[in-house]
């Protein structure tokens, strides 16, 4: 679908957590604000708004992206999964649930601001490379800031889920 006249508002059709969504939005609206303010899905957090903190991470067509670095209109036709729908999202849903349990048990969150994005980021690694070492886990979550835990317990939790899945 091409837009031939410069538009300041456009209709966007996408799937969010398995549900079809159609909205007319300003083109300058980023995906994070669309999810939070237009759809009320406030589990996607907004920290830095320039792609540094990782708190707005969501899944777009199966891959994690920064929702603050995508326009809502660019998600036209995409399948978006936020933390609200992640636990119901097929096989990776079980991984998210396992990660949540390990995060809880190991105190891998304190204020919780980074947690939804941290879970989605970790879930991608567990899904694709469950054999990852601690160093590879650290590298994979390097784009997600946590200002409470010092990361140790987060790496512990992700590693526990990785090990559980490689021993299946």
């Amino acid at each position, binding site marked *: 679908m091409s837009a031939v006249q410069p538009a300041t508002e456009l209709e966007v059709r996408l799937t969010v957590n398995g549900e079809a969504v159609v909205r007319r939005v300003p083109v300058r609206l980023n995906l994070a604000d669309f999810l939070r303010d237009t759809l009320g899905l406030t589990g996607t957090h907004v920290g830095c708004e320039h792609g540094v903190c990782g708190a707005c991470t969501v899944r777009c067509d199966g891959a*994690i992206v*920064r929702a603050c*670095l995508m*326009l809502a209109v660019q998600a036209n036709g995409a399948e978006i999964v936020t933390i609200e729908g992640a636990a119901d999202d097929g096989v990776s849903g079980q991984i998210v649930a396992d990660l949540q349990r390990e995060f809880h048990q190991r105190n891998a969150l304190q204020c919780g601001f980074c947690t939804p994005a941290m879970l989605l980021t970790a879930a991608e690694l567990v899904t694709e490379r469950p054999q990852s070492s601690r160093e590879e886990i650290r590298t994979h979550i390097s784009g997600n800031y946590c200002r409470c835990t010092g990361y140790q317990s987060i790496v512990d939790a992700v590693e526990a889920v990785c090990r559980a899945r490689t021993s299946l």
Partner: protein
Amino acid sequence: MKAPPFSYLRPGTLSQAIDYIELYGDDARLLAGGQSLLPALNMRLAAPSVLIDINGLSELAGITVNANKLVIGALARHAEVERSALVAQHAPLLALALPHVAHAAIRNRGTFGGSIALADPAAELPACCVALDAELVIAGRRGVRRVRARNFFLGLYETALQAGEILVAAEFSLVKAGERFAFRELARRQGDYAIVGLAARAMVDGNALRDVRIAFFGAEAKPVLAAQAAAVVEGGELTAERIALAQQALEHDLKPQGDVHYSAALRLQLARVLLGRALGDLPQPAAEARL
């Protein structure tokens, strides 16, 4: 912050995109992966009146081998290049470099062509293109032209792209028997901007190197070919003494910029250390990207 107001165009073909960039000129910016442009908008460092979203241009997508060239479309995402079997086989230097390009979520969205066209001085891919002597394919109203990577990067965020032109692909010669690669980068944390780094290629025969090309990034405003350091190790056995001489010679190739974190002298010293490591990597069967 939020992006300033702009209007938005979504061309369906390359020809339509060229119409738009001719029509709007400097008022417009091309939106590809958006991983540098959208931060610039959100921080109000840029305020174009029109964004031309080129993500729908199938002419710019994909990774193929065509006429003995590996062709990486400008819209190929970093993650796609990183995982591509064709890239691993035919341009393994890129596979070494890609894990250092930003973080996983950024690589899922950012594009190969976007990184080349932006020409950030600390970016890995422009230096890889220079080290591999890639050709950049540029389309405009009058057709397609090709520019060698070493002539493409002109300065800080400055390239050979002219008004009305768009980068469509990068072309790489296929790896030859005996050709080896090394990639080294120093950053505070994986995925951060490089303090300094290098991409290198050479033909290796036993422990001897020839046709050595070493491109540094993060040192100056654009990728720099270290010609004098390369000349020192060209031909003959690669000994510790010659590596040390190449490290010395680097001061004639690089005039690093200092900043609040790293002085020019420190950058040169770090570049020398990385050069020594990379030269040591080159004769190895599979040079690996390490710190």
